[in-house]
């Protein structure tokens, strides 16, 4: 090692307290970046690998009865490598004395022969025997059941039956049951028969033989199969084409991780600011040394190399510290995300490119941060360097701000000194403020976004004046439905609505689903991108159970025959949905023409069109397939009692209810998604505040170091140690409060933009912005605590200096 490198190392060792702080801050940034980057690499690999391992269906065709002959016919198409029939039946499962949860029952003919969309066996029996049910592992909690229990189940057409929970499975392709508040169950055809349903399979999962990831190819093969089915007299109700090779939540996860990666880089940038501060101060304190080195033959490049070497050293040590922490963090993140998306991680192996990228960024980042101070510091001439009288000779009092500050503090001179001191090193102050302000901004944004999410959801749910929504197995005469409602105690008002699938007449999607509930309950993820169909709800024009929050136009009126109100999600889909414009919709088998009379705001909702039920009454008579009910009491127990009572009355009328969602339950699903954003922002702000705190501590250490002589003078003229301590702490406090003020000013626009951006990723819908004033107060308290904590140690050290030491310092 040459003397040049020895100097680089020992200079840092001499300033080990400062160096440690900076290394910690950089390591924190690199750890955050490393954790997210590794998690991204692991999760995308494992999610898609785990999903692909299940051999997910290329296309799913919903038809009528599928028999072996039909399967053979489909398999005779060389473009189809495999085909397997399934059935999905909706129903309810009893989760408490009077509590029913929505149930999605997957019916499999032969559990030993599952080749497409495979299930992973978890615990207990395999396959389930007749009268037994396997429950998706995450759904056990929703069902409040465990293996060995007997649960009550009822399906669309069946009767309430006890089923023995004989085991659990993992269904990679399903969203987390807890978040969706739904139970996924797996049974055989025999069990389906026991439940009172006709034992047949109607969903054909096909796998294409070639080009498995080519959507166009899959579409064309699915079309061939559809035609084959139709040619053999089978009606095809719908064709679903999942995104090939991609887990349904893969893109969502990618977006979330991308947001987190950006955050990791942001923290790294903030920690780079500390490097700028440290090296600027280091170079300022070594001006004479630079002069001497130049005098004895060092070129500017050689000088720069010493300090770049130091920056490299900082980065190197930080990378070594950060890698294990980052890897640990990535495991936590992976586990959390895997739980959220309900999949298993088989390997936490991190690809080499992640290590390399982290190392490159960890090493190059500090070098970039060092570039300006090193370039500037190494350019000083020998003469100027040798003539330097020390680092504390900056000229204070020249600018207007200095003169204004000179009037601050009044007769309380130590306070005045502390306030003025804060502004002496402006660049350093600005950089320190930047980190602290960023922490405050993220924290206040987290609270504001949370408040905005609550307010947006409140506004959405305020438009819904019903407490319970009940789906019926098919359409029933309205008169009978109303009779059952009237006979049920606890219902203030009830209406029978009719829900259908619809699409723009020029959109060529297949068919209609006339059952009340499609296979997936309407929740935060329904109606995602790629679906061209939307819900069409026929409701009484004078309904009191929904009050449109109109963005444009008007409500439905008594005289309307061809009027339609669309929600903003549908309006955003096509420019045709504008007030006053006429649109052609395929609703049922018919194409009909409608005039858009209103656009209603329904945040976080899937696309929906509302039409007057008179349209339907004229064609099918007065029928309904869903109920909306306002109840006297809306607590879960009261709702359960009403549901049981209503169920009995509906059965009495010959009507089968197949599922229900209370307002509280749908709100819960939204809240779970929102919580994720909120927690993410809070963690971000905590990490940034930590970097900010370390930054402040570095700044205060540098400030104290540079002003040792002044402190010696203060001590010499009678200042007691605690006064010195106080001056330094107040200086830190001034910086902390300044950062709070800046964050407070910027919080409104920033949190609004950030909230909209993040919520749009999840729901393709913006926020009703609400400012949370409590955030200001909490962050003020945090700023005060961080400022005092950050300046405590430097202040204490300053107060311990003897006059002789302070004055002798050069």
């Amino acid at each position: 090692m040459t003397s040049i490198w020895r100097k680089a190392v020992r200079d840092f060792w001499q300033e080990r307290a400062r160096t440690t702080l900076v290394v910690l801050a950089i390591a924190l940034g690199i750890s955050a970046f490393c954790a997210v980057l590794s998690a991204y690499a692991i999760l995308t690999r494992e999610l898609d690998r785990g999903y692909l391992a299940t051999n997910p269906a290329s296309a799913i065709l919903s038809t009528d009865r599928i028999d072996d002959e039909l399967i053979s016919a489909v398999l005779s198409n060389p473009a189809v490598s495999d085909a397997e029939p399934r059935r999905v039946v909706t129903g309810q499962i009893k989760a408490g004395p009077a509590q029913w949860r929505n149930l999605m029952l997957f019916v499999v003919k032969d559990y030993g022969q599952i080749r497409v969309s495979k299930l992973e066996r978890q615990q207990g029996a395999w396959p389930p025997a007749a009268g037994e049910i396997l429950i998706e592992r995450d759904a056990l909690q929703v069902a409040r059941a465990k293996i060995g229990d007997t649960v009550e189940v009822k399906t669309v057409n069946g009767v309430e039956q006890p089923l023995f929970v004989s085991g659990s499975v993992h269904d990679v392709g399903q969203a987390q049951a807890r978040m969706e508040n739904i139970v996924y169950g797996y049974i055989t055809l025999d069990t389906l028969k026991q439940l009172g349903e006709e034992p047949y399979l109607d969903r054909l999962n096909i796998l294409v033989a070639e080009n498995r990831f080519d959507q166009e190819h899959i579409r064309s093969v699915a079309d061939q199969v559809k035609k084959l089915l139709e040619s053999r007299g089978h009606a095809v109700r719908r064709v679903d084409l999942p995104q090939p090779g991609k887990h349904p939540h893969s893109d969502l996860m990618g977006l979330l991780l991308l947001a987190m990666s950006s955050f990791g880089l942001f923290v790294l940038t903030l920690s780079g600011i500390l490097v700028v501060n440290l090296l600027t101060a280091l170079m300022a304190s070594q001006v004479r040394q630079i002069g001497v080195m130049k005098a004895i033959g060092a070129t500017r490049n050689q000088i720069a190399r010493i300090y770049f070497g130091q920056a490299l050293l900082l980065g190197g040590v930080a990378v070594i510290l950060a890698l294990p922490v980052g890897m640990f963090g990535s495991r936590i993140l992976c586990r959390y995300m895997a739980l959220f998306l309900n999949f298993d991680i088989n390997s936490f192996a991190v690809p080499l490119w992640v290590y390399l990228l982290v190392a490159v960024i960890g090493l190059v980042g500090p070098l970039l941060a060092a570039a300006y101070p090193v370039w500037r510091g190494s350019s000083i001439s020998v003469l100027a360097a040798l003539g330097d009288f020390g680092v504390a000779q900056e000229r204070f009092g020249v600018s207007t701000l200095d003169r204004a500050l000179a009037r601050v503090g009044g007769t309380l001179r130590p306070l005045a000194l502390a306030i003025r001191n804060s502004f002496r090193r402006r660049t350093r102050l600005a950089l320190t403020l930047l980190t602290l302000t960023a922490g405050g901004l993220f924290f206040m944004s987290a609270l504001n976004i949370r408040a905005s999410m609550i307010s947006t959801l409140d506004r959405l749910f305020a438009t819904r004046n019903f407490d319970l929504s009940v789906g019926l197995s098919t359409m029933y005469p309205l008169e009978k439905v109303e009779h059952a409602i009237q006979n049920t105690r606890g219902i203030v008002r009830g209406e029978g609505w009719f829900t259908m699938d619809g699409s723009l007449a020029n959109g060529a999607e297949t068919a209609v689903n006339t059952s009340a509930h499609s296979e997936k309950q309407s929740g935060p993820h329904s109606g995602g991108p790629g679906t061209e169909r939307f819900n069409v709800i026929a409701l009484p024009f004078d309904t009191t159970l929904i009050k449109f929050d109109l963005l444009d136009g008007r409500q439905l009126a008594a005289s309307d025959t061809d009027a339609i109100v669309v929600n903003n999600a549908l309006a955003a889909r096509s420019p045709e949905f504008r007030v006053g414009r006429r649109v052609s919709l395929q609703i049922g088998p018919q194409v009909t023409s409608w005039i858009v009379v209103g656009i209603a705001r329904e945040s976080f909702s899937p696309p929906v069109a509302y039409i007057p039920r008179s349209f339907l009454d004229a064609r099918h008579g007065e029928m309904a397939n869903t109920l909306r009910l306002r109840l006297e009491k809306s607590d879960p127990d009261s709702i359960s009692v009403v549901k049981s009572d209503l169920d009995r009355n509906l059965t009495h009328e010959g009507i089968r209810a197949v599922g229900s969602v209370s307002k509280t339950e749908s709100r819960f699903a939204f809240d779970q998604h929102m919580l994720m954003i909120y927690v993410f922002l809070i963690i971000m702000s905590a990490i940034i505040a930590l970097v900010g705190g370390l930054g402040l501590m570095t700044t205060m250490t540098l400030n104290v170091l540079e002003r040792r002589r002044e402190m010696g003078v203060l001590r010499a003229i009678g200042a007691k140690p605690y006064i010195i301590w106080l001056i330094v702490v107040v200086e830190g406090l001034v910086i902390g409060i300044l950062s709070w003020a800046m964050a407070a000013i910027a919080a409104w626009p920033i949190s609004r933009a950030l909230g909209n951006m993040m919520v749009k990723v999840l729901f393709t819908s913006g926020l009703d912005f609400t400012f949370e004033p409590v955030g200001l107060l909490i962050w003020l308290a945090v700023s005060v605590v961080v400022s005092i904590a950050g300046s405590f140690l430097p202040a204490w050290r300053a107060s311990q200096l003897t006059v002789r030491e302070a004055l002798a310092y050069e």
Partner: protein
Amino acid sequence: MFAALRDVELAIEAGEFVGIVGRSGSGKSTLLNMIGGIDRPSSGIVSIGGKSINELSENRLASWRGRTVGFVFQFFQLLPTLTAAENVSLPMDFSRTFPARERRQRALALLERVGVAQHADKLPSALSGGEQQRVAIARALANEPPIILADEPTGNLDSVTARDVLDLLRTMAAAGTTVVIVTHEADIARVIDRKLEIVDGALSNSAEPAK
């Protein structure tokens, strides 16, 4: 514009030991800095060994300085984080005048020559003023420069140590090194070959051989 030096015309022979004297602010240090390539004249030339150094770029000047000039400062100016031997090795590292493996041996030899070899592995803070200045002189000799420039090298030393340092410089000059020293020392005449007096930035006519 204030001129620190004016109408200075000076030639110093190789191996000469020249003392520059004068009051504070008279321009002594400026003259020394001109000779060492630390400062540049606003007009005129500074030619060392036939080379006009005031025309060199900063980087070339630094390289030239490393090989040609050894500096000794009043406040020693040793780098506090390097040991005595490492301080002496530093100019060799910068100028790469000796192979890396030989540099420590050479540094130790130079420290031996100035009488502080026993302190080779100590940090400057552990050395007395006189010892530090000896190390500084050893550092100045590291690249075997033909010229040593010393700015008040005894200004911070007691009289006994100052005498030792001057004797050391005299020995260097006797060995063929050109030594130019700026000093206030009264008995400088004892060691130097020629004394130059600067008054208000100009060389006094009284400049004369010391012995």
